């Protein structure tokens, strides 16, 4: 995994945690939504905190799509779950929610699970009946680099 790919994984973590926190803060301001008034669920996106949260989650989604193009689903999800720790810190110190010691322990267990998978390979399979994505990318990347250098030469 290259530094560029690590930055994509870091982007997923940061955008996801920031987006979830902004949404939570916005929804607390908006109050509880009743099942009888579902239209308020659509209007709630006009709340600035929720709007910014959605922007962050769009950043999360873009990074997530990029990561899924070169890594397993079962690698990307745990590799980016340091976000749980960030989320708990944000909930504790910015949203002033009460975080009990059992929840902290839960976060520790989740982090341990993350440790298991991140030591393994990012891609373990090839979709049936298709070219391996990483080999394909190498073949495609080679002429593109030539093209870039020739453009730079001009």
């Amino acid at each position, binding site marked *: 995994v290259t530094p560029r790919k690590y930055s994509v994984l870091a982007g997923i973590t940061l955008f996801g945690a920031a987006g979830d*926190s902004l949404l939570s803060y916005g929804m607390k301001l908006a109050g*509880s939504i009743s099942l009888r008034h579902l239209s308020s669920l659509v209007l709630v996106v006009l709340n600035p905190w929720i709007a910014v949260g959605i922007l962050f989650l769009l950043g999360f989604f873009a990074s997530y799509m990029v990561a899924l193009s070169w890594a397993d689903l079962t690698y990307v999800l745990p590799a980016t779950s340091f976000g*749980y720790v960030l989320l708990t810190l944000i909930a504790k110190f910015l949203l002033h929610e009460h975080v009990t010691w059992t929840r902290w322990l*839960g976060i520790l*267990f989740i982090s341990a699970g993350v440790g298991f*998978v991140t030591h393994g390979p990012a891609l373990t399979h090839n979709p049936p009946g298709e070219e391996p994505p990483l080999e394909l990318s*190498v073949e495609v990347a080679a002429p593109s680099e030539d093209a870039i250098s020739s453009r730079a030469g001009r």
Partner: protein
Amino acid sequence: MRELYVWCAIATIVTASTTGDVLLSRAMKQVGDVGSLCRSTGAFTVIARVLRNPSFLIGLLAMTLAFYSLLFALSWGDVSLVAPASASLTFVANAVAAKIFLHERVDRRRWMAALCVAAGVLLLAA
């Protein structure tokens, strides 16, 4: 009663999110390495290729359902319970779904990770 609502919302998030994740992962594997493709064919071509993929579109619908369920759940429960609980359970469900539908090699290391995360979720809900 409020707690029951939160857990029902979490169950919906997990089901919709797992369906979405599997379909999006399948779509992106079909598209190929986005970084390399952007350099060779340009970002717009890659974006168009992603947007035309049926798995991507259905996956996006499932993720939208998961997102609105998350909004519901966040208005009822703490973010430090709802977000990690739904995301962690999704991770366990994804390990199973990825093995069955995406043919990923979910080895002992990845199952151990799934068990650790499941234990973590139980502690979060305690």
